[in-house]
């Protein structure tokens, strides 16, 4: 072993961190090499002196000063430890907040509040809906005109002024009523009706949703004819409509104007109602009895006058008188004709009521699904809708957080700057203390 190696091993030897073989070599070398020996002794002395250095005592106030500083620290950083200590509580608050945000945003999109399903279901379930009155608003029970017309029809032919029990005029008020009241009204009216018949022009409209459009159109026409009426006009339109599934359908709508004998009016209407889903219906009557009978009376008076004049004519002597009488006759006759025309027209109207039928084609499948959304379907839709709302809520929350990041960054930078300044101040204070 040479001196250099020995020098390098000295420290290890002193620490007894040397293997057996090296140790023996080392000791052997020292015995024969005085320089190395001296170096070794010096080194050992150095280490020994170091070992013997005594520990110096703590300054007296060391501990108190230290604890003071630590307690200061503890009170001056409540934010950090507060958050760390109460992190579970803070996390709970944050979680509640997140849930609330999602919940509110999903609540506004709650399914079942205004779905088309609900609206359409209601509509189709309607017995009779808002009346779209083509004419006067008075609603009259359908069978009533029929009751009226059971009494003698052919008044136009007879010149007899029928009895006019004034009480009947009061029953006009009874004509304003709901269709469902028809039965009781019928009885009431019948009891009051005598030979006097009311002159009532009845009209009505009915709007149907039907599935088998063309057949229905034909059957309604047949029905009208069977009942002694006829189709005055009809009109069909192929329109493209967009239903709930956003598929465009070619659906037909049709309008028919039926003239029906007044007696058959209500029964025909009832029959038509069975052909499809009634969307709305309406019927009303106008009582023209007053003007009718006034006119009739006037006609009678005029005819009497006419006869008188004719008699006078036979007694006329000269041309002058004849001319005067002729004029007068002319005038009277003209008036009679005019009024008769009116009477006849009214007769026609009274005897044949008008019924406007509107048909709308729908698809059968659609009707059924709209009619019966089962509870399970609704629940399932609600469930899916809620999930969608939650997803939308999460998206909104995410957008909110991301858009808040710039503000958070600015806040963090400012806080960091403030914190660094604070720390520097503390350090400077410490330095100036010592």
């Amino acid at each position, binding site marked *: 072993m040479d001196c250099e190696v020995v*020098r*390098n091993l*000295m*420290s*290890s030897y*002193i*620490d007894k*961190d040397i293997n057996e073989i090296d140790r023996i070599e080392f000791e052997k070398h020292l015995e024969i090499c005085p320089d190395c020996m001296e*170096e070794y002794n*010096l*080194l050992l*002395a*150095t*280490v020994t*002196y*170091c*070992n013997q*250095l*005594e*520990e*110096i*005592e*703590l*300054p007296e106030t*060391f*501990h108190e*000063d*230290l*604890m003071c*500083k*630590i*307690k200061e*620290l*503890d009170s001056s950083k409540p934010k950090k*430890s507060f958050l*760390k*200590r109460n992190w579970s509580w803070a996390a709970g608050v944050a979680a509640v907040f997140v849930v609330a945000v999602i919940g509110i945003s999903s609540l506004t999109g709650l399914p079942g509040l205004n779905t088309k399903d609900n609206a359409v279901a209601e509509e189709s379930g309607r017995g009779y809906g808002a009346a779209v009155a083509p004419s006067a608003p008075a609603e009259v029970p359908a069978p009533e005109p029929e009751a009226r017309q059971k009494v003698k029809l052919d008044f136009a032919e007879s010149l007899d002024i029928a009895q006019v029990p004034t009480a009947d005029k009061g029953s006009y008020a009874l004509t304003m009523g709901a269709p469902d009241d028809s039965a009781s009204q019928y009885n009431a009216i019948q009891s009051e009706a005598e030979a006097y018949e009311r002159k009532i022009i009845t009209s009505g409209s009915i709007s149907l949703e039907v599935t088998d459009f063309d057949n229905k159109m034909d059957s309604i026409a047949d029905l009208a004819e069977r009942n002694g009426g006829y189709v005055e006009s009809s009109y069909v339109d192929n329109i493209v409509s967009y239903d709930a599934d956003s598929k465009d359908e070619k659906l037909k709508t049709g309008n028919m104007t039926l003239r029906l004998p007044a007696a058959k009016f209500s029964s025909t209407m009832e029959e038509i109602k069975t052909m499809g889903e009634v969307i709305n219906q309406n019927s009303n009557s106008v009582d023209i009895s007053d003007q009718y009978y006034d006119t009739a009376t006037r006609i009678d008076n005029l005819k009497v006058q006419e006869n008188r004049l004719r008699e006078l004519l036979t007694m006329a002597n000269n041309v002058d008188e004849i001319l005067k009488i002729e004029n007068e006759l002319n005038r009277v006759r003209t008036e009679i004709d005019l009024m008769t025309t009116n009477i006849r027209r009214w007769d026609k109207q009274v005897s044949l009521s008008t019924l406007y039928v509107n048909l709308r084609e729908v698809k059968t499948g659609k009707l059924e699904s709209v009619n019966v959304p089962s509870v399970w379907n609704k629940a399932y839709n609600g469930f899916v809708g809620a999930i969608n709302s939650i997803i939308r809520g999460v998206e909104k929350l995410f957008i909110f957080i991301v858009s808040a990041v710039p503000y958070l960054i600015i806040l963090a930078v400012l806080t960091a700057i403030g914190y660094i300044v604070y720390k520097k101040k503390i350090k400077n204070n*410490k330095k100036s203390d*010592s």
Partner: protein
Amino acid sequence: MEAMEKLLVDKSKKGNIEAFEDLISGYEKKAYNIAYRIMGNEEDAKDMAQEAFIKIYKSIQNFREESSFSTWLYRIVTNVCLDELRKRKKANVVPLEMNIETDKGSAVIELSAEKETPEDVCERVEKKELIQNAISSLAEDYRTVIILRDIQGFGYEEIATMLNCSLGTIKSRINRARNLLKDKLRYDLELYEKKSV
């Protein structure tokens, strides 16, 4: 780690100041001494030791219990002191120690806050201060291993953990440091040797 100490560590982690106080009170003296040896004077030792303990208090939650608590603690103390030394070096602080030659042998004059009398100067040419001054004049890496090994008596492994170096590095560093110290003290030692002999 001892069970008692582990309990104190856990409590301190949760922010219990009393537990922390108990925990560190056993280490204060040694920490102070390490700081004193590295910094070379008591003022700095006090500052650095306290700063180290405050740092320990702040970061005790990050103590991962991979090493023993004492090793971790002394590591922080050592690093706090070394960081301060490096900072001062960068700021070109006037070295606190100067080697001068006197007729009594080489001595190291230490600058301190108070003005020193000649008596003080003479007194300090005693073995203890001699060695301390010699140590202080070492470069900080060597200074540190000497302090930890020969003054404080830590084992190689512990020192390696504290300074975050490999075992081999530590051994060679100790060797080199001791030789340097030996050379510095050579004449004084020889003086003493001759005296005692």
